[in-house]
């Protein structure tokens, strides 16, 4: 058995990390396509407030964070959908008010700085069984949700008005998406920390979008990139003695760069070989006047 699996904490980190690596990009795909990446950042600061309150009240901090993120997500979505505030204004208000509350709560009770550091930068190596159970349940909920509401989610990601006219209940879909984003952020926070949550939700998705042609491929690729990032990141962290959260996030960035290179290579070869597999030749031979791809 390789050295890395001889430690109990490492096994737990791998299990927890892998679950989050599936959860975050699977959901992140819809967040990125709806251009809601900033919502993940906002909710991670809300999660920090939840963690701070959890420490002070000595209630399970991750659980308080979960309550805080899901309810704030619902609140943000309500403000946004009713047109009371532009989307980014609602986000700013939630981000800074929760950060301010977190700062006040933390400053009032200076006793958990070390723990707080862990929540900011990720504590995957000290993840406990309770965390694993919570993440496991969230993972199950998100998988069931994404699989069963796949049609609704893809439709409203493509265009909200079109989805409405197709008969999708867009408001309800958006609300569910927001609430589960809160849950995803809370789960991811344990692995990469509050400050880098957005990375695990967004970057594997960007890598997948560079290569995928269809929606299901994009979903699977995003999860694949997420898993690879967590595994490679954890291994590097273990053997080189680096911070796990940081090395996982840097690995996602490396995956993104790799996807760009592979994508460029694919573009280059399909341009050279008449692109019969991508259908370019078929379209140029059609009678319809083609607007150059560069103009799209």
């Amino acid at each position, binding site marked *: 058995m390789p050295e890395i699996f001889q430690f109990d904490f490492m096994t737990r980190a791998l299990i927890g990390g892998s679950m989050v690596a599936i959860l975050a990009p699977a959901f992140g795909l819809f967040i*990125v*396509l709806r*251009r809601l990446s900033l919502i993940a950042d906002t909710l991670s600061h809300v999660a920090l407030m939840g963690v701070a309150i959890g420490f002070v009240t000595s209630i399970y901090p991750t659980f308080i964070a979960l309550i805080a993120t899901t309810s704030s997500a619902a609140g943000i979505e309500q403000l946004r959908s009713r047109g009371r505030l532009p989307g980014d204004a609602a986000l700013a208000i939630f981000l800074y008010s929760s950060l301010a509350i977190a700062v006040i709560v933390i400053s009032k009770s200076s006793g958990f700085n070390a723990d707080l550091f862990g929540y900011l930068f990720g504590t995957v190596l000290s993840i406990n069984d309770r965390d694993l159970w919570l993440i496991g349940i969230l993972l199950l909920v998100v998988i069931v949700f*994404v*699989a*069963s*509401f*796949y*049609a*609704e989610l*893809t*439709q409203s*990601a*493509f*265009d*909200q*008005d*079109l989805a*409405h*006219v*197709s*008969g*999708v209940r867009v408001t309800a879909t958006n609300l569910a998406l927001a609430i589960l984003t809160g849950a995803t952020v809370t789960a991811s926070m344990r692995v990469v920390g509050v400050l880098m949550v957005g990375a695990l939700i967004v970057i594997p998705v960007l890598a*997948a*979008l*560079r290569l*995928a*042609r*269809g*929606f*299901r*491929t*994009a979903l699977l690729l995003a999860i694949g990139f997420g898993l690879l990032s967590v595994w490679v990141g954890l291994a590097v962290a273990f053997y080189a003695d680096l911070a796990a959260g940081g090395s996982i996030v840097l690995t996602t960035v490396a995956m993104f760069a790799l996807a760009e290179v592979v994508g460029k290579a694919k573009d280059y070869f399909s341009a050279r070989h008449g692109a019969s597999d*991508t*259908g*370019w030749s*078929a*379209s140029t031979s*059609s009678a*319809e*006047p*083609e*607007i*150059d*791809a560069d*103009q*799209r």
Partner: protein
Amino acid sequence: MDATDSVESQVALWPEESDGPELPTDRPVVCEFTNTWYSYGGGEPAVEDVSFQVRKGDFAAILGPNGSGKTTLLRLALGLLKPTRGSVELFGESSARFRDWSRVGYVPQRVEGMGTRFPATVEEIVEQGLYRGFDPLSIFRRHGRKEVLEALDVAGISHLRRRPIESLSVGQRQRALIARAIVGQPDLLFLDEPVSGVDAVGRDRFHELISSLNREHGMTVFLISHDIGAVMQGATVCACINRTVVFHGPPHHITGEHLSELYGFPVDVLLHDALHEHR
């Protein structure tokens, strides 16, 4: 002729027989605006006291300059906006409460998801038009369904079936969206014609396709357009909008006066010449 030509002389110039058989006037109403008003955020009304009907089998063209409230009318009809005053009905039901969306197809001018490397093939986008409510197994559905292939064929883009939607030209995307809108065989088709990005040939083919959907597939069409000349050939009824209804009736009843009122300058002479050529 000049801008003061009467309605009668227009009719005389283009007798109704030349339009083929007139549709009977007692067909059921599928979309109806009744004294509809709308203003954004309580400001100046964008739509002012609009009343008109679209009947089954119509090819209704909604014409008007930029900012005339055409797109607002479309959004009201689709229940995406609620009228400030008056009512908008789809198949006899308030459009805000309407739920039977399988009867309606919609082709927007542009789509939010485009430009984000949206990961979908043309086929996947067209399949969206077959949505019929919650289906927990939708993620496992196989591609290549018969309805989808037929819709792609009607829209003339069968060869683009497996292409990523993002790689298409504006005109091709328009066809993909039309295929998406017609795949469920709706009774009523709403279209918002793109202002730019499609050249003259592409625009003619677009109008031919819409006409054939109306005539051969029996779909009622509600088209927002800027292209009077092209619309005149296919449309059975025309509404000229400049916040309020300037003209409503068969397209060959439009006079220079209506158009001057619509666009604020006399455009009749040139337009009529162009029409003669088309005929």
